């Protein structure tokens, strides 16, 4: 009877298309919106994940997330270095400083100061120049997006795009001359400011004079040492906060989850997609069954059992569900692919496939149950009614 169920489903092309499109829309919304949400949330900790080498981040105990900088005294670096199990510990500066551009305007930049000797914590990908060039006098590395846009030189024609900065160009950072020695690619963060890398000592000279300028201490554990155990030791010895990289990412993620309206806004979008999809697909599928009720009645009169009819309706639901889900997920993937070079945040892990798959399945089950109840209650004598 399966082929009869499939032919019944596809017999009315318009309705068939309507059901599949309803499910495609639901699947698209339930996949694409969470993908953007996950991409956006991943940006909250992308600065941490870009810094690959250290196992542990040490900071002031009151820090709530990666951009919540509460500076430490430089002496804290030496205290951390003195703790057993620490292979090495390096300073990092992170702060917002104003850059004066060629045309005299100012742009706030996210300045990262790296340990002068090792340059640990540098950008993940260099597009032009080398990380070591930071050791050159007044050297800075600028991220490509900042170089092209906010730090760019005035356009050669009125209304045109800014001319990108390139190696050899210069800026003023807090009245200090800075020469661009490299262009890097960094993962986008929540902050829209350009990112500038320099050495720790040079960053401190750019920053307004303060007693405390050390943002983080980056720690590598000795081989065989458990990072979680070492974080406990650092906390106990220094009174500072110490997190493994994963813990610090999670701390930042949780902060944004609980202190911003992002999850609720995206949650509403996803819920709306689910409700609208369920309404469209459920209603169309139910109407489709209602319109085919006489046909089901004929089959019932001719001796088709309820179980067979139930299987036929389930098959129809599974078929439209699979098609709608596949199309929705495919469109989401296409959307992500087309937007891969844009500013849009997008992350599409396999778990998201399960999430939207479960959503579409729920809609199909809902639609199928409505239809099945109708068909199970159907009196076959309906076939003799005019």
């Amino acid at each position, binding site marked *: *009877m399966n*082929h*009869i169920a499939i*032919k*019944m489903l*596809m*017999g*009315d092309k318009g309705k068939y298309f309507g059901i599949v499109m309803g499910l495609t829309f639901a699947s698209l919304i339930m996949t694409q919106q969470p993908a953007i949400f996950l991409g956006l949330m991943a940006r909250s900790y992308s600065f941490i994940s870009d810094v690959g080498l250290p196992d542990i981040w040490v900071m002031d105990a009151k820090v709530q997330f990666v951009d919540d900088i509460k500076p430490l005294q430089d002496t804290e670096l030496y205290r951390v270095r003195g703790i057993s199990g620490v292979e090495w510990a390096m300073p990092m500066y992170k702060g917002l400083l104003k850059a004066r551009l060629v045309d005299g305007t100012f742009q706030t930049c996210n300045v990262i100061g790296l340990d002068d000797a090792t340059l640990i914590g540098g950008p993940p990908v260099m597009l032009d120049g080398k990380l070591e060039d930071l050791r050159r006098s007044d050297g800075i590395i600028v991220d490509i997006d900042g170089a092209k846009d906010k730090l760019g030189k005035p356009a050669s024609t009125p209304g045109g795009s800014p001319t990108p900065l390139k190696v050899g160009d210069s800026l003023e950072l807090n009245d200090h001359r800075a020469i661009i020695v490299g262009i890097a690619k960094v993962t986008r963060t929540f902050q829209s400011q350009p990112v500038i890398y320099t050495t720790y000592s040079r960053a401190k000279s750019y920053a307004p004079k303060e007693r405390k300028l050390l943002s983080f201490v980056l720690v590598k554990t000795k081989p065989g040492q458990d990072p979680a155990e070492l974080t406990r030791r650092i906390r106990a010895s220094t009174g500072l906060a110490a997190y493994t990289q994963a813990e610090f990412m999670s701390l930042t993620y949780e902060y944004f989850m609980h202190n911003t309206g992002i999850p609720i806004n995206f949650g509403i979008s996803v819920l709306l997609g689910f409700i609208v999809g369920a309404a469209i697909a459920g209603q169309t599928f139910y109407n489709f069954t209602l319109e085919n009720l*006489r*046909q089901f009645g*004929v*089959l*019932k*009169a*001719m*001796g*088709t*059992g309820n179980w067979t009819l139930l299987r036929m309706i389930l098959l129809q639901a599974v078929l439209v569900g699979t098609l709608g889900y596949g199309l929705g997920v495919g469109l989401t993937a296409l959307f992500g692919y087309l937007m891969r070079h844009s500013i849009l945040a997008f992350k599409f892990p396999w778990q998201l496939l399960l999430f939207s798959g479960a959503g579409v399945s729920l809609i199909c089950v809902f639609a199928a149950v409505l239809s099945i109840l109708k068909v199970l209650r159907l*009196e*076959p*004598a309906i*076939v*003799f*009614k*005019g």
Partner: protein
Amino acid sequence: MSSSTFAVHCQNVLKVYDTGGQKVTALNGVDLDIAMGELMMLVGPSGCGKTTLISVIAGILDQDSGSCVVFGEDLLNMSSRNKLNFRARNIGFVFQAFNLLPSLSAAENVSVPLIINGMKRSDAERKAISVLEQVGLGARVTALPSELSGGQQQRVAIARALIHSPRLIVCDEPTSSLDHETGRNVMTLLKDVAMHKDRALVIVTHDARIFDFADRIATMDDGHIVEVKTAGILASPASASKACTPDAVEPYNLAPE
């Protein structure tokens, strides 16, 4: 004669519908016997209980009381599963509106009863083609119902009703949607290919033009069988003109003129 010698043996069948708190008696103590090899027509005004009676006889509606024994089986006392199997094997249906599945071809429509009875689809469709040839539609086996005329659709429906060799064929107004000539052709076909000494046909109709095909005609009114006569009497022109009136409320005058 014992009930087992009849194709259908109904005794004192009562069926009451509850329509929103109002009780409507559709069958009010119907007694009816249909013999093997007989073509019985049920006539009467609209709402007199004809359709309810064939629904009970076909096992798709349960009566409230009384018994209806079909080929020796009391359908009311059968389990749902057995009743389904009984219908699938023993009953063929022909409807006024044909009730073909619109997205299936003629051959696929005809093969449905065999598939319900567990036959492989390819075998069922092969047999369906041969039955369609018997009803003169060998050239239209792949046509969809929408591509066939009313008469052709009814032939497909007849082929579907016959393909699994049921012992009882129940027809509801099989010629009402057809013109006179097509209607008679369909009845000729039904009588030629369906009538068999081990099979019975029950036809509900208002169409007096086909009364002469019946062996007997039972007239119903107000939930009763009023009269059962041989076909020749009711098929006379004067009676026929009354029987043609679908909403006639008076019982037909069955007395010979």
